[in-house]
């Protein structure tokens, strides 16, 4: 029974990634051959780090960290409200509305924003009519447009896991906390948040990883200013036809994603350890006997 999953993982994940790593040590021999691997070297990595590419990487990391945080800030209150305040009948409808945009192709959803945000588009003219702006909106082809686009495109991936954990959270827990004298803030901090932690972690990973490698949003909405690493990697493969350099950039991108996840993971583990130590409750022996 475990064989299919294992084969799948090997064929469609491990081997392609190893292939990319192998190619990243190759070079481009001439204009009609994108890759040669008869001599292996670190030349492509050297080239990748010596160019303006590094700047695009740091911009990508900023966009994805800000984007993931915004997704969490928007998704958590919504998922909490949906799980605790909305009647079960409406819950299904609202969850459906969250998922409905996913029936439309990612590219088309993103192109939709081109129309909405264009200087002559509806958002721009509404803002001007309401007197919030004196001149047309020039948000397209900026980093701001990409930031907006990624939050829109990945928000549902944050809402769904959060909703699942918050929905499974037994209301009796919160009631018990209230009965024991905790106010709302304290209940949220000490009961809801720790119990929702697995959902938060799942949501953060589900959003951060694909968002960092995103290519379509930046390509459609970013112009020259909102460039992201995914676009840069793609152009090495499709425009320059330099698969070695493209592969090296892809490996750097993967390493950056894993590194960021590892750093935040260690940070979270450290915080949890500190919290546990500082809040350690030693139950008196009497209480233990009573149980």
């Amino acid at each position, binding site marked *: 029974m475990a064989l299919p999953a294992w084969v799948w993982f090997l064929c469609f994940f491990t081997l392609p990634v190893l292939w990319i790593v192998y190619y990243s040590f190759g070079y481009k021999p001439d*204009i009609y051959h994108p890759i040669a691997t008869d001599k292996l070297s670190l030349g492509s990595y050297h080239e990748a780090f010596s160019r303006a590419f590094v700047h695009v990487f740091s911009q990508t990391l900023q966009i994805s960290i800000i984007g993931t945080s915004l997704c969490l800030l928007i998704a958590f209150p919504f998922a909490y409200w949906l799980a605790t305040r909305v009647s079960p009948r409406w819950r299904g409808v609202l969850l459906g509305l969250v998922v409905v945009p996913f029936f439309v192709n990612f590219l088309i959803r993103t192109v939709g924003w081109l129309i909405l945000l264009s200087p002559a588009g509806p958002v721009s003219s509404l803002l001007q009519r309401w007197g919030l702006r004196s001149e047309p909106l020039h948000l397209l082809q900026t980093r701001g447009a990409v930031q907006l686009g990624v939050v829109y495109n990945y928000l549902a991936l944050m809402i769904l896991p959060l909703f699942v954990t918050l929905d499974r959270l037994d209301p009796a827990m919160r009631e018990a906390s209230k009965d024991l004298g905790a106010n709302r803030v304290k209940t949220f901090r000490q009961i809801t948040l720790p119990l929702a932690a697995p959902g938060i972690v799942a949501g953060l990973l589900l959003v951060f990883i694909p968002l960092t490698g995103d290519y379509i949003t930046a390509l459609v909405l970013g*112009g020259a200013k909102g460039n992201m690493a995914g676009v840069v990697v793609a152009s090495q493969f499709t425009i*320059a036809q330099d698969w070695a350099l493209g592969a090296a950039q892809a490996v750097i991108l993967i390493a950056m994603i894993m590194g960021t996840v590892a750093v935040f993971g260690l940070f979270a583990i450290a915080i949890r350890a500190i919290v546990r130590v500082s809040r350690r409750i030693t139950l008196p022996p009497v209480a233990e006997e009573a149980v």
Partner: protein
Amino acid sequence: MSEPDEDLKILASVESAQRISRRAFMSGSVVAAFSGSILLSACSTSSPGGAANSSGASPTLEDQLEFFHWAQYDDPKLFKKFTNELGPVTHIDTYTSNENAITKLVAAQGSSGYDIVVPTGPYIPQMVANNLLQELDLSKIPNFQNLETVFTNQPWDPGNAHSVCKDWGTVGWIVDKNQISTPINTWKDFINVAMTEASGNVSLLDAQNEVMGVYFWANGIDWTTTNQADLDAYEAWTLQMAPHVKAFESYPGYQFAQLGYGLSHVWNGDARQGFNSFKDPSRYAWGIGSPNTELWMDNWTIVQGAPHPEAAYAFINFILDPKNSLQDMEFHGYNTGITGLKEAAAAAKVPYLDMVFFDPAQLATMHAQEINSAFDREVQIFLNMKNAAGA
């Protein structure tokens, strides 16, 4: 698009004709999805002659024709008309750059399953050297004689041994006069305005050749240079220019007004499509590059190992027909090089012909690129410029 085509010449009801071509189209796309040339050639040999074949077509014509083509580059109605008149059902896969197309053809080693590919002139010699293109039998393209001799026998393909002119064009700019008051007459002016008045609101073509051209033309350097000092200077310029660029956009024409650009670097055919779409065309100005600028020519070629060569010849002959050529020119806005096209277009009152046809004095300033040893470096300089533009 869904109304019955007036050019329909098939002895069947409109409904059944559509059904025939749709089914054939579906099978064509499924086969192409597998990139299976073996499957494809098996199909073509097992059923020679199309279901919708009409009189006058050669009986040996295959029933399909596979294009590897630039996107949106011919009037879709012409493909329908070709199928209706001659039989072969067309299917198009697209590419976004010559390099991209060539790499795929090299990788397939004659088994790509494509019949027709449309490379830009300077790429042809090495494609021939890599045995990617068939030698053409011009006797199968009688309409070849319709081409003006200026556009035949090009330096990259003497005697049209492997290619036939599809269309040619040049590069220039569109300016929004409401935003930009400085007049732009030369590439030097273009650069100056891009770095000052239009800074932050300029689009450059997403094509390294043409961006490189802007610098070399403005500075009086031959743009086929392989001199490293010239390339170093170009690289330094790209980093100066990058912060002023709003977007690298291959087809800014039709969205120029919508996106509110002040200045765009643009192909002449795309600029013309822009002018066709502008509500107030007098607000915008088009300029052609000077003192020197580009002449590019895209060419019909038949791929080595093409499974449907007779259909490919038939299509090339079909598209070189003056009437079809005029219809195609109205769609893409480029000169197809057919004798008498300008007069025919003027008679048909096609707008903005000064953006399609150029006089001999202008032609003398236009030069073709060549693919040489500097090419890989030029591409990397350009991609690095794009990365630097976000800084």
